[in-house]
């Protein structure tokens, strides 16, 4: 398939992109298999923790506490990292962050950089900016490598290439690594990546990363990973530049005892991921001699200022909500037109775009609540979705069709007389549209019967927007109130 642009400013609206992607049966199969596998592993490991709910509650409180004192913790982090020999930079937006990274890489004399998977650097489209400055970035996470060599974009926060199957990956590696004899077993593909990247790890002296957590108390950085590419990038080069959203800070080292337990189980369905690295600044003889952290705002302070939206920033990017979401599982990640897909993307993207773009995303949900249930830091995603839908309607002004329609409904519902009249009118209007349906009764598929209720599958004009993807139950021939009145006579 063609590469979907993951820039919310230019991306197709969610329904349009989803409609295209729903035709990609191979992609949907890949997404379904992968999300089912992660979910099954997650469920098993969450079930063995009898204090899971207590951990979630503590994590929520820790993250909410950080946001409530964000300025203080960032300053504390800056002080401690500086003391430990690192340098902190501040970037108001993507352009500033790009410029800082480019100039630091140039200062290090880099023509190439190796990268640890980082959604934050994807968010600011860093690779393109480096390329323009004549610096080539090598993605070293296996999934990101697959995407980079395949000229593709991430469709999942934790497993960004989950929309690709092994045969597709083999084709990419065969072509891009010039390995005509490459086998298709996952082991062969991983071995090819190991050889391809080892040479880069040994040769390239500048690395770019994100971070999972910053620790205010020590000025420490925590990076969570599986493959060891992260360790390669953060120990072998001379210079390491980490681009980190300002919300990623934790108060104390001890808070990791909560976060690490939740993150691995939620993200990959492991008790613990293979490697966690935690280090503080520069240590002579061990790791990079220059350590930079670029603290990125990019509209996060706007999200912080929104009372209802703020909890979005509690996110620790585990992607459990993607795997659990019935919408994501159908469309995959590219339909969201953003590096942040799924339920968290549906609330994060429009807010990071200051509600100017990604306005269809808060509607890309059935509000079933599965995302809230699995969220390790208890972000009430459905609540934020509804809040953002409200914001979208407000932005469209009082004359938008949805606003007018809802005002009319409000007027009808306010008076019993008007409500009853509307019901009678609706009953008349629906006679040509409502149909009784055969429905399966009991366990046996062969047994079907006419159901009691009638259903509407098509509505005319603008109302058709509702029935295009949903069935509407018809207004019954007698309402409860009418039945009650008749009964009490």
């Amino acid at each position, binding site marked *: 398939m063609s590469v979907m642009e993951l820039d919310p400013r230019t991306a197709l609206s969610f329904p349009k992109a989803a409609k295209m992607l729903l035709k990609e049966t191979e992609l949907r199969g*890949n997404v379904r*298999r*992968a999300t089912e596998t992660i979910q099954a592993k997650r469920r098993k490991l969450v079930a063995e923790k*009898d*204090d899971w709910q207590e*951990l979630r509650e503590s994590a929520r409180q820790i993250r909410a*506490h950080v*946001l*409530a*004192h*964000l*300025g*203080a913790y*960032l*300053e*504390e982090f800056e002080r401690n990292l500086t003391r430990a020999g690192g340098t902190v930079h501040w*970037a108001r937006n993507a352009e500033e962050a790009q410029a800082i990274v480019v100039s630091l890489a140039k200062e290090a004399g880099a023509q190439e950089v190796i990268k640890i998977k980082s959604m934050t650097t994807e968010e600011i489209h860093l690779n393109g900016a480096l390329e323009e400055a004549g610096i080539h970035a090598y993605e*070293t996470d*296996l*999934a990101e490598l697959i995407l980079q060599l395949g000229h593709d974009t991430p469709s999942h926060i934790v*497993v960004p*290439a*989950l929309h690709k199957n*092994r045969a597709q990956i083999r084709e990419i590696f065969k072509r891009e690594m010039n390995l005509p004899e490459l086998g298709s077993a*996952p*082991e062969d593909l*991983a071995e090819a990546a*190991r050889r391809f990247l*080892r040479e880069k*790890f*040994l040769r390239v002296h500048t690395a770019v990363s994100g971070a999972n957590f910053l620790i205010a*108390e*020590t000025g420490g950085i925590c990076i969570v990973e599986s*493959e*060891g*590419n992260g*360790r*390669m990038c953060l*120990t072998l080069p001379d210079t390491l530049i980490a681009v980190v959203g*300002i919300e990623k800070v934790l*108060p104390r080292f*001890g808070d990791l*005892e*909560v976060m*690490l337990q939740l993150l*691995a189980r939620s993200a990959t369905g492991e*008790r*613990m991921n293979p*490697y966690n*690295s*935690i*280090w503080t600044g520069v*240590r002579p*003889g*061990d*790791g990079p001699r220059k350590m930079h952290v670029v603290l990125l705002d990019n509209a996060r*302070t706007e999200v*912080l*200022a929104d*009372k209802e939206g703020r909890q979005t920033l509690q996110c620790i990017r585990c992607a459990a909500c993607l795997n659990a979401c019935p919408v994501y599982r159908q469309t995959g990640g590219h339909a969201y037109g953003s590096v942040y897909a799924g339920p968290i993307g549906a609330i994060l993207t429009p807010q990071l775009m200051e509600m100017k773009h990604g306005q269809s995303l808060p509607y890309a949900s059935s509000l079933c609540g599965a995302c809230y249930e699995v969220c390790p830091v208890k972000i009430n995603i459905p609540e934020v979705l509804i809040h953002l839908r409200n914001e979208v309607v407000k932005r469209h002004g009082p004359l938008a069709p949805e606003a007018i329609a809802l005002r009319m409904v409000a007027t009808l519902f306010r008076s019993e007389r008007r409500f009853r009249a509307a019901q009678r009118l609706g009953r008349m209007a629906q006679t040509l549209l409502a149909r009784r349906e055969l429905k399966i009764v009991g366990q046996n598929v062969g047994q079907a019967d006419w159901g009691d209720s009638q259903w509407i599958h098509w509505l005319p004009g603008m109302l058709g927007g509702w029935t295009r993807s949903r069935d509407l139950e018809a207004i019954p021939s007698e309402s409860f109130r009418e039945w009650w009145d008749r009964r009490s006579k």
Partner: protein
Amino acid sequence: MSAVISAREEILACISSAGTKGAEDAAADYARIERSYRQAARLSHAATLDLLEERLHEYGARVFRVAESEIASLCARLLRERGARRIVVPAGLPEKWLAGAGSAAESTLEIVPDADFDAAALDSFDSVMTASTVAIAETGTIVLASAPDEGRRAITLVPDYHLCVVREGDVVETVVEGMRRLDAVKEMPLTLISGPSATADIEMTRIKGVHGPRFLDVAVVRA
């Protein structure tokens, strides 16, 4: 006066006008965070050791329970079995642990103490042996904290085989206990290792050994 405001000042100003609180309340608010998750161990120490062994097996690591006096012969045997030719060791690793390896006349094993080798030089080693600071049974995690017998981070990363010594007294049951022990060394470079390097990026199939060591053997040493 110039009207140019630095990014730092502007971001901090935006944060403070976003209805956040200052540093003065932070400590008191932090103390109020509820922590009713499990903090203490439930298992006996013997059961904790068994659990660690079980978890490490699940990751495909091999586990050997030995007395201190048996480390040398175990290491010699394991290195021979793995076909190790060049092993890098941290400068602070007890010499007696490797006394049995490389000494036999027919042995071709070269034992080299770390001497700030660059990445390319490290790539010429097939093996590394270190001690460890803490091991967490619940998750099968071994923690290296840059102690003299653990060395710097790169030496346990580039060679393909890691032979790691865990002292029984350093084994705890839960992540919470483990992280609390690490509080004493929290500013050191820490590496938490839970099984050999792995990926699930291809069809969610766990494949061992992408970039870090592919083979991990653990010697659990009786106190």
